[in-house]
């Protein structure tokens, strides 16, 4: 599926992002904020200052009976872990793949290295497949690493604060296997579609806002009035979003010509 020439491009693109301190910092800091900083704050507030959370009682009252299994604090933590954190988590693959794809597609154009690549013995489709793979691999690596870090931090905090651990629910499995890959592909598709017109990486990265905004709205919605998402719907949503991304990507690749890419 991937030939050795494409593998060389994937390796080069990954190395490019890893060796760029600015981009690497962005790739590390943002996920850390979502997976370490936010849950730590939540857990510590709920453990040590539950009175500071104004609508904690309201949230509790809105939860269905079967979710109110333990004491108030455990119920809230479980709700945060399985209903709020996954939403924050979907932002990670979007941001990671936006940074990576913008560097890989538009960054090459900006630095005038794309033209050199266009004289290589790869079809435009093969070249773009390689670049999509590079963005996808980095995005998923960041996402999965973030999950592992988050799990370690959250479980350690729970053990420290409450003396017991709360394991993540089924929704996390579908988030990790279906939703995050689909979100990542969608973000890459948005960047790829705009790559012929975009002249700078910043222009290009801004396109991912179109994906982040709806998620932010859902997060706000979770705090205002709860939207409980059935884990199986997540699986379906992941599959549908993935299919849309794949179709859009295929359409974008067909439209690419050397001339459009070289236009400055």
């Amino acid at each position, binding site marked *: 599926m991937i030939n050795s020439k494409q593998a060389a491009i994937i390796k*080069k693109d990954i190395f490019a992002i890893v060796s760029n301190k600015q981009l690497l910092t962005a790739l590390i800091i943002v996920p850390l904020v979502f997976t370490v900083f936010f849950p730590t704050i939540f857990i510590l507030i709920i453990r040590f200052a539950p009175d500071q959370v104004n609508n904690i009682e309201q949230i509790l009252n809105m939860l269905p009976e079967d979710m109110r299994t333990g004491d108030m604090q455990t119920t809230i933590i479980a709700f945060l872990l399985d209903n709020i954190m996954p939403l924050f988590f979907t932002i990670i693959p979007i941001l990671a793949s936006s940074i990576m794809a913008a560097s890989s597609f538009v960054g090459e154009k900006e630095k005038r290295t794309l033209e050199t690549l266009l004289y290589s013995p790869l079809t435009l489709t093969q070249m773009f497949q390689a670049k999509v793979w590079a963005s996808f691999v980095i995005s998923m690596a960041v996402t999965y690493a973030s999950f592992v870090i988050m799990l370690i931090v959250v479980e350690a905090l729970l053990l420290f604060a409450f003396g017991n651990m709360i394991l993540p629910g089924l929704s996390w499995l579908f988030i990790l296997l279906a939703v995050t890959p689909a979100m990542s592909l969608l973000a890459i598709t948005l960047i790829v579609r705009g790559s012929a017109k975009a002249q700078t990486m910043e222009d290009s990265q801004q396109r991912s806002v179109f994906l982040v905004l709806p998620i932010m709205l859902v997060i706000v919605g979770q705090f205002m009035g709860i939207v409980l998402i059935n884990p199986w719907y997540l699986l379906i949503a992941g599959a549908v979003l993935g299919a849309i991304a794949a179709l859009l990507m295929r359409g974008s690749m067909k439209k690419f010509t050397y001339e459009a890419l070289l236009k400055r």
Partner: protein
Amino acid sequence: MNVIITENLSKTYDGGKEAVKNLTLTLEQGEVFGFLGPNGAGKTTAVKLLNGTVSHTTGSCRVFDIDPMTKPEELHQISGVLTEHAQMYDHMTGLDNLLFFGAVFGLSAGESKTRALGLLEELELFDAKDKRLSTYSTGMRQRLSLARAMIHKPKILFLDEPTSGLDPESILSVNRMIKNLAENEGVTIFLCTHQLRYAQEICCRYGLIDDGIMFANGTLDELRGLVSGGTTVKIKTDTDIHEIQVEDESEIPAIVKRIVNEGGNIYSVSTEKPSLEDVYFALTNKIDPARGGASA
């Protein structure tokens, strides 16, 4: 064997600019062809047309019997391209850049390394091979780009202003390399430049282009035949230096005899043929404004 054949090849960009107009050209294997003209004449567009990175508006072209428009990737496997805008990666070392492009062209890691080190040595970049490209001077970058264009041993090289930014010594070593490739390895060179003196040192045939039109092509002698003036004879006597225009060198002995018979002493006699630059400007003035073509 003709390796490039174009017939009435034209390119009009979206904005309406006609960059190349009715280019008809053939190039033989192992030729060093100088495509000469001022900046903006259409040289780079011609290179892009011949490599399939811009689409032609009318006409046709084949390079090594491949249509660049339909199978650009096949052509790129056997062609090397150096253009001003085709840059390499600043964050990588010179050697790593070459190894990367070697891999992209399908060379094994071992082949890439052997080839890259050989080219770095030949282009006097060996000592800088482990330095990042961002630390390279303009001339070093240009030489590394040349090495990159040759990493996969192409059958044809498209060099757009290859000596831009190079010092005189580097120009000499690049010239030696290009001549060697053409003469000993049969590589065809399509060299675009506006530096006419440089082109005269290295090319065996020329195409002169301005405003998208190739208005003359042929060997230097053939191009000289298109302009009047012939050979200039310089005769240094005890009183003066005489510059006399002759159509043919057979006229020289009679001139010398006449000076001697008139009592003059001759210290030296030399002949000077019009340079490529002289021919270029003579042709430019001759063709303009009608912009018809001239072919030798």
